[in-house]
């Protein structure tokens, strides 16, 4: 059964001058995770806002949990949880205050709301900071609390709009851990992200969108095959470049390319870490000590480059759809 269905969604702003969604269609199978991957301005947020009843599409149809989003938004609100790219909680109130308030607004009794708040704080490792105002929280803690607030009534369908944008690597890891646990619990999740790595880590399936349309869809492995694998990158001192190029080309089996400014040599590899070790061995026996070395996984830019032939460009559409929140983030 499909828990989320979007068909032919169109949404324009400024009387049609800006087309945020251009006949977008997607669906999510019950109990699975779909990641909507795209650059800023691709229409990710607009799509989530329509599915979460915050925005009406100009045309098209959307069903969430078997309920028509346009005809019965009030019923859809009972089965969804929404957590955005900003932490939509009251900064002045404490974490505990927020969760109890939202619990009551979900029509739990006061006692039940308190019990649920304590339980969620515990689960998201926020018990220690429960009685502190949110404004004293780190970015990662805010997002976790925001996520907790969207889980108060155990939603059937959860929407996470760029849950890790703006977080530091540690915050991102923590968030991933929390989301992975949720997914194990069997929630149907639609997640938007700008990071291929994140989609890879969390999603069963990925829908790549650009200019308000789905341009590719499939599992992360399938997409990566389309994009090509990892690239080996090494930086060496100028007098070693010629020799190092040879080594890298040997290991890769492809032609190595050189970025002269950065003195960085790179080449596609298919064997991942093994290629890395092999390269280092050869360099070592040639008496070359690399200044930097690494494996670069395909990024969103690489996906876009291979799917569309253009880089993931920044268009101003998102500014229009979420202008208010964009300001809040600065």
């Amino acid at each position, binding site marked *: 059964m499909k828990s989320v269905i979007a068909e032919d969604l169109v949404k324009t702003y400024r009387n049609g001058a800006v087309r945020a969604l251009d006949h977008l269609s997607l669906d999510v199978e019950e109990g699975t995770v779909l990641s909507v991957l795209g650059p800023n301005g691709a229409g990710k947020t607009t799509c989530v*806002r329509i599915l979460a009843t915050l925005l009406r599409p100009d045309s098209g149809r959307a069903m969430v949990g078997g309920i028509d989003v346009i005809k019965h938004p009030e019923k859809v609100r009972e089965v969804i949880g929404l957590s955005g790219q900003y932490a*939509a909680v009251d900064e002045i109130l404490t974490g505990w205050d927020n969760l109890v308030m939202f619990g009551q*607004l979900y029509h739990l009794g006061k006692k039940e709301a308190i019990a649920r708040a304590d339980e969620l704080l515990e689960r998201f490792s926020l018990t220690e900071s429960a009685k502190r105002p949110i404004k004293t929280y780190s970015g990662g803690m805010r997002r976790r609390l925001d996520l907790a607030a969207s889980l108060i009534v155990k939603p059937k369908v959860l929407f996470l709009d760029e849950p890790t944008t703006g977080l530091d690597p540690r915050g991102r890891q923590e968030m991933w851990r929390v989301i992975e646990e949720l997914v194990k619990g069997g929630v149907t999740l639609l997640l938007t992200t700008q990071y291929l790595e994140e989609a890879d880590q969390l999603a069963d399936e990925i829908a790549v969108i650009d200019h308000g349309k789905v341009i590719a869809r499939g599992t992360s492995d399938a997409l990566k095959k389309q994009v090509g694998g990892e690239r080996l990158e090494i930086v060496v001192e100028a007098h070693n470049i010629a020799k190092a190029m040879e080594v890298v080309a040997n290991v890769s089996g492809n032609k190595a390319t050189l970025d002269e400014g950065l003195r960085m040599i790179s080449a596609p590899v298919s064997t991942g870490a093994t290629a890395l070790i092999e390269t280092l061995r050869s360099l070592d026996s040639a008496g070359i000590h690399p200044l930097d070395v690494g494996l670069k996984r395909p990024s969103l830019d690489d996906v876009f480059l291979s799917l569309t032939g253009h880089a993931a460009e920044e268009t101003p559409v998102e500014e229009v759809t979420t202008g208010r*929140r964009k*300001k*809040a983030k600065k």
Partner: protein
Amino acid sequence: MSAFKDTMIITQRQLRLLTRVPEVLVFSTIQPVMFVLLFRYVFGGSIDSGQPGGYVQLLMPGIFVQTVAFTLAGTAVGLAEDLKKGLIDRFRSLPISQSALVVGRTLGDSLLNIVVLAVMGIAGYIVGWRPTSGVISVGIGFIFLLLFGYALSWVGIYVGLSASDARVVQNVSFIVTFPLTFLSNAFAPTTGMPRALQYFAEWNPVSTMVAACRELFGLENQFGATAGSFPSENPLITSFIYMIIIMAIFIPISVRKYKRAAD
């Protein structure tokens, strides 16, 4: 029934904000108390009020009205901040009555007014304010003030939802409210103003509210109002009609604007 409960939860949130940030309460009271002291001692000596008990008797109703008029800014700024932070999106994604958030906020801001008015009343008493009309009339006067603040906080909802930035909202509210409170009979007689301004000041809701409160607090003197003009002859009725008009216009358009906040 659940709509009522939702509203109460939002109102509670407003009140909890006050206990979490007591500075808000302190500063929303200090400013009007400061006005009481400044006007009482700076102008009080040189304005001939012709009023037994002196200028402070005329001044207090003026400052009360000015203070509740600033509810507009308070509501507008608070709502603009919620909107900016995405909090409105969260509320709108909840299975609650869609007007609970705005109704709850207007009620919460009115409760804040009760506290502020009480503190000002005490400050006024200390510097010589003595209403002479009896407890019931004075009580009605305060209810009138709260109702006026409530009506204006609906204007605040509209302003808060219309602008994109809380600082803009702050400035807009100030630019609108400040002249309105001064182009009135609140602090000086209107008869000294140029003819056109005088006309405006007579019909200004702030003036009719001030005149209504003066009447309810037992003052005879209408402080240089043009004799015979309808609003200065019937300040209570005029003020009441103004409040009804403000609410009849701004409650529906604000609720509608809220429901479409994101479109």
